[in-house]
């Protein structure tokens, strides 16, 4: 039952692999393409027995009637999708667009910071800001040169683009906070920062801009179930208040967010996730033995990368 269903559901019309852990899916959903605004996300169920996982709408094409998701394979569901989600197959459920759209403010000079996978979801916001007439600075962080994606897309909508790599294989050497310093040095009058990436990175960004008192919006990614405000699983602490990221966010003022609380809550199913991944990998191996069909990404089963410890460009 781990095959994405072929007949019904939401059809995958294109796929692109950025690296062996990052892939893009373009999904046909004309109504969603029409409704989506920058900053919103969907909840996906890849098959009937699957989990509901939130994924940011990284792009949408209103004329083609498609939305784009960029996914990092970190655990059972996202790795399984990496195998089963091929062009022509369908996702069992795609609900959304969820969350309050990002405020595309009339700020004159805006900087958009994306770390690792955060690069994808920051794109529609940067583009919208450009369309609204802002001066747009892009700051993208990757671990190394090979992991860079969408640089061309950003070049088209940014007045200035700062690429950072941890190992210095391209652009500025160091994390995105280095990029932020470079940007502030060049433009002391930046009105607003928007940062998306792993919580540690967003926290670092908020700390980097705090002394300069520049408004910094972050997009939070707590564990979710329904995405409709019904379960409270996604609650985050903002200025000491409880907020539900799925209906009150996901964008919040980075200087108010309790990131430590968020990071602790993200670990709450760690054991279950690990177990699910192992079970699934074991299944894949069994199938491999039975059918001797090659199965990707099943070999490195035991090592679950923690997407929030591994600071991609953060």
């Amino acid at each position, binding site marked *: 039952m781990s095959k994405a269903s072929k007949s019904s559901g939401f059809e995958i019309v294109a796929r692109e692999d950025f690296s062996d852990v990052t892939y893009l899916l373009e999904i046909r959903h004309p109504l969603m393409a029409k409704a989506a605004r920058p900053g919103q996300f969907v909840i996906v169920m890849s098959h009937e027995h699957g989990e509901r996982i939130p994924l940011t709408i990284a792009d949408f094409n209103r004329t083609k009637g498609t939305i784009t998701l960029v996914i990092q394979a970190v655990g059972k569901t996202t790795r399984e999708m990496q195998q089963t989600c091929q062009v022509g197959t369908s996702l069992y459920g795609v609900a959304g667009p969820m969350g309050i759209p990002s405020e595309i403010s009339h700020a004159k000079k805006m900087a958009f910071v994306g770390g690792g996978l955060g690069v994808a979801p920051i794109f529609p916001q940067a583009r919208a800001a450009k369309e609204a007439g802002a001066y747009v600075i892009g700051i993208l962080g990757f671990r190394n040169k090979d992991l860079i994606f969408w640089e061309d897309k950003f070049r088209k909508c940014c007045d200035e683009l700062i690429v950072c790599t941890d190992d210095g294989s391209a652009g500025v050497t160091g994390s995105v906070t280095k990029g932020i310093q470079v940007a502030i040095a060049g433009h002391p009058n930046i009105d607003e920062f928007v940062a998306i990436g792993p919580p540690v990175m967003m926290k670092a960004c908020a700390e980097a801009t705090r002394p300069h008192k520049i408004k910094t919006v972050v997009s939070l990614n707590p564990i979710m*179930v329904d995405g409709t405000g019904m379960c409270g699983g996604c609650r985050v602490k903002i200025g000491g208040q409880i907020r539900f990221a799925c209906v009150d966010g996901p964008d919040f003022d980075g200087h108010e967010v309790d990131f430590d609380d968020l990071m602790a809550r993200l670990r709450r199913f760690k054991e279950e996730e690990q177990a699910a991944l192992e079970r699934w990998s074991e299944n894949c191996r069994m199938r491999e033995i039975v059918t001797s069909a090659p199965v990707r990404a099943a070999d490195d089963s035991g090592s679950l990368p923690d997407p929030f410890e591994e600071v991609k460009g953060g």
Partner: protein
Amino acid sequence: MAKKKTIRTIPQQRAPIREQEPAERTKNFAEVAHGFRVEDALHEAERCLLCPDPACVAGCPVGIDIPGFIQKISAKDYRGAYDVIADTNLLPAVCGRVCPQETQCEGVCPVGETLEPVAIGRLERFVGDKAIQEGWSSVPYIEPNSFRVGIVGSGPAGMACAADMAKAGCDVTVYEAFHLPGGVLRYGIPDFRLPNEVIDAEIDNLRRLGVKFECNTLVGRLFTIEQMIDELGFDAVFIGTGAGYPSFLGIPGDSLNGVLSANELLTRCNLMRAKDAGYDTPIPLGQRIAVIGSGNTAMDAMRVCLRLGAGKVHCIYRRTRAECPARAEEVHHAEEEGIEFHWLTNPIEILGDDKGNVRGMRCIRMELGEPDESGRRRPVPVAGSEFEFEADLVVVAIGTNANPIIGQTSKLKLNRRGYIEADKNLATSMAGVFAGGDIVTGAATVIEAMGAGRAAARSMKAWLGIRDTDHVYRTEKAGGNGKLFGIDLEERNYARVRIG
């Protein structure tokens, strides 16, 4: 008509109910209470006095003709009984199981003054189950009109409104945010109380009436209520999105890992099937679980935890058993299953370990003081009575607030507390848009939500200019002393004329 029954001539004992043994049932998710067998139903039907001015009918929020259907059971005309119920209640198999009968129909039945009241709920369930078994559904002849009706939310309110509008001939589409329809019946109330097959059967009945279900559709965000009217071409819209948005305790430690809402626990277990092998959704489970609150939601959460294999489950409630808002039967079942109740106890802090996980709570004893606005005596803390309570999972079931999505995305008028404002006909501030159920009243009951759906359908028909034939038949049967044009229906002092 049978000769007049009195309290002395009727069977004194209620028909026996057969249930799974507590020790056995806490190991499975199968239904706790088995339904009546035919002989049980006949026995119980005998206990009804067939009151000429039945209190039970007034006690039922939708006014089911209770003596009417019970009489049909006695006559072994089960199909007839079903038709009587279906006239007002679309979901007998559901309501028979989950209504708080002791505060509604059964609570006012005069038999209850000296004996146990007539088991109206169980009789209703008997008829509802029979209907599902036999595949009865009252699909009337529907003459399509050209109206299109959109329903937001597939809970009991939405289902009821959809059914009535479909019967009136409208083209009805129900939009549901989840991947499966049913609302709380699906994601909240667990299988051992309301099996999924019952919900599926009721949804199938709606499909048979021509109702279309569109799941995975978050109205407000995918399209707005305004767009439904202006762009999608709906002539009228009903909003029944339920309450949602659970409250947390607002005390230190609220966001520790291991503190979650009952809604989250139940959704993971029921809708996402975390309890079944082969499903991916994880569910947190502890060995010593504390559930805060004592409504139906709390009872369900506790009993789900037991069935998932928790060591010990405790209920923490700041008032006493007498104020406990859950259905009496559920409290009874929970007690049988070994839930430990701590009345007059309130948490004031949740304690964590160094890894950010729950290790316990600090609680305080309460006592009942003066009555508050709700008429219940207000619990007040007893000074100096604080104590620590060990727990590794804390489930919060202390109520919900209004879901904000429709409010965020439309110009509909909301009340102070964020619920949708509707007048007595359930019309909202937007022409052609009606609302009912928990999103208007705040958390209530299944039957009240269903009643609201039907009341809204009546207003919707009036608004669309559809003649409400249903209404005329209702007056014939219930109101107007069973008379229409001076003809007493019960006496049948006229002959039906058949044409053709």
